[in-house]
């Protein structure tokens, strides 16, 4: 089967050409990438936002990913390029997370870039309010959930490190966090602690 049909790039290294790569036509490629942009840009930004947790950085990385995609000499079926786009974006996100360490968060920059939105302040107020209700409802959960969330959100520890510290598996810690997040979301949607408990917490 043609690897392009599987949506999978045949080579791991994006800089090496595959033996069966066709020489793509530059204008075709541009058209296909424009189509990709129209159809998948929101999804790509959503993906990057989840990875780097910063909206402006996500937009920058998405742009970077398209640029790199344009530079690639690859077969240009849309399914193929789509998979590649997300792979490039994923790698860019990893690089960005790694290089972060000493760098200050782009909050100040965010402000300058986004200040054309007049509703920015209002969004911030809503976000702060949601966050405060999130932390409020987290108090209602057993300690293991609270600990996992605090260690991840506030102390910025990876789930692997949290798992090592709690003597649980990485998978379990991710489940604690997903359960706690679901629980808090349901509480924010107006459910009682009992209802949210039943729906959100999976069994140990």
């Amino acid at each position, binding site marked *: 089967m043609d690897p392009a049909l599987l949506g999978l790039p045949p080579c791991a290294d994006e800089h090496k050409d595959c033996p069966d790569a066709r020489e793509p036509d530059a204008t075709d490629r541009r058209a296909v990438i424009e189509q990709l942009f129209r159809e998948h840009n929101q999804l790509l930004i959503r993906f990057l936002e989840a990875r780097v947790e910063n909206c402006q950085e996500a937009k920058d990385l998405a742009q970077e990913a398209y640029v790199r995609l344009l530079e690639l000499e690859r077969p240009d079926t849309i399914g193929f390029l789509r*998979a590649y786009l997300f*792979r490039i974006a994923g790698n860019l996100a990893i690089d960005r997370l790694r290089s972060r360490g000493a760098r*200050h968060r782009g909050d100040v920059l965010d402000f300058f870039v986004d200040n054309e939105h007049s509703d920015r302040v209002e969004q911030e107020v809503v976000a702060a309010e949601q*966050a*405060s209700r999130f932390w409020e409802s987290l108090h209602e959960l057993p300690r293991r959930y609270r600990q996992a969330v605090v260690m991840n*959100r506030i102390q910025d520890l990876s789930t692997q490190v949290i798992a090592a510290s709690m003597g649980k598996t990485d998978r379990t810690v991710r489940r604690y966090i997903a359960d706690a997040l*679901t629980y808090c*979301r349901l509480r924010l949607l107006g459910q009682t602690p009992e209802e949210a408990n039943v729906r959100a917490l999976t069994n140990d």
Partner: protein
Amino acid sequence: MTSSHADQERSREAAEWLIRLSCSTPSEEDVRAWSNWCESDPQNTEAFETLAALWRASKQYPPSAQAVTALLAPDGEPARIDGFWAKQRPWRNWGNPLRMKIAYALLAFGVLVAAALVLRLRLPGWHATQSESISSERAQQSAVVLEDGSRVDLGGRSAVEVDYTRKQRLLTLLSGEAYFQDKQITSWPFVVTAANVEVVAIGTAFDVEKSKDQVAVSVVDGTVDVSVHGRTAIASREAQGATAPNEGAVFRLKAGEKLAVSVTGLVHFYLIAKESAIAWREGRLEFFDASLSDVVESINRYAKRPLVIEDPSIASKRFTGTVFLSSIDEWIDSLPTVFRVTVDRSQPDVIALGR
């Protein structure tokens, strides 16, 4: 406002996708499955967006330092009384009747133990005064049993000053690391200080390590109260001091918990395997999310040739793992791979680490 079961299920799925994408490196399979899920129903996309925004907001707007302390409190503790943690002392925290009974029982037991000790050791009174300094050399470990039967184990190149007065048993960790076992349950508080950190304990076992950057307290048995003097803030590595700073704070630690207080007053909380804090007594240094500079400082209390960090940019690299004291050299050899640092053995008396 209520939501349908479908909405609730959607929230759960969205949370699972979000955590899969953000807390690990997603495979291409994951990304494809996730994008299919998003595109199969606009409501899925919306649920994901809302949840991702909430998740980001929770990081951007963390709770106060006090709320964080409460969130880390054990189940069943009064979790949300502001200022509670900053005022209580264990021997005054016996508000409810059950605790009162336990308190009396423990006190009675303590009196018996103390009486037994007094008789056995023929001390003039069980509030004996004692003052001495104990220390150990590089790569040497030593243990001292004090007059009241409590025991101090010193790690390599460490020093403790003992000052027992009639009011309290005060020990000061001047440098290095020590493991304190206070077997007495009395109202004669056992207090260990190290820099701006004070540990108050009764009948417990805990380890304190002091480096130039931080003081770490790990509880092996029982409960201790750790007071931090000066400004403190619950640490968030990305935005230092993002949570509201406290002026002096008391943290209650149970067995298996560790608190690290940096010189700047940032407080990190960890859960640890109890034995890992005192693994050094068995020839292992176990590190957990420690900075390379702290790791180097601990190892230098044992290593023949001290390590020096020549490039400050590598000092804050984090390390989680075990170093065997019998094979420190092998660990140093592994540094270029583990930390991407260079190891330079050309100088006669130090081993230089660079980038």
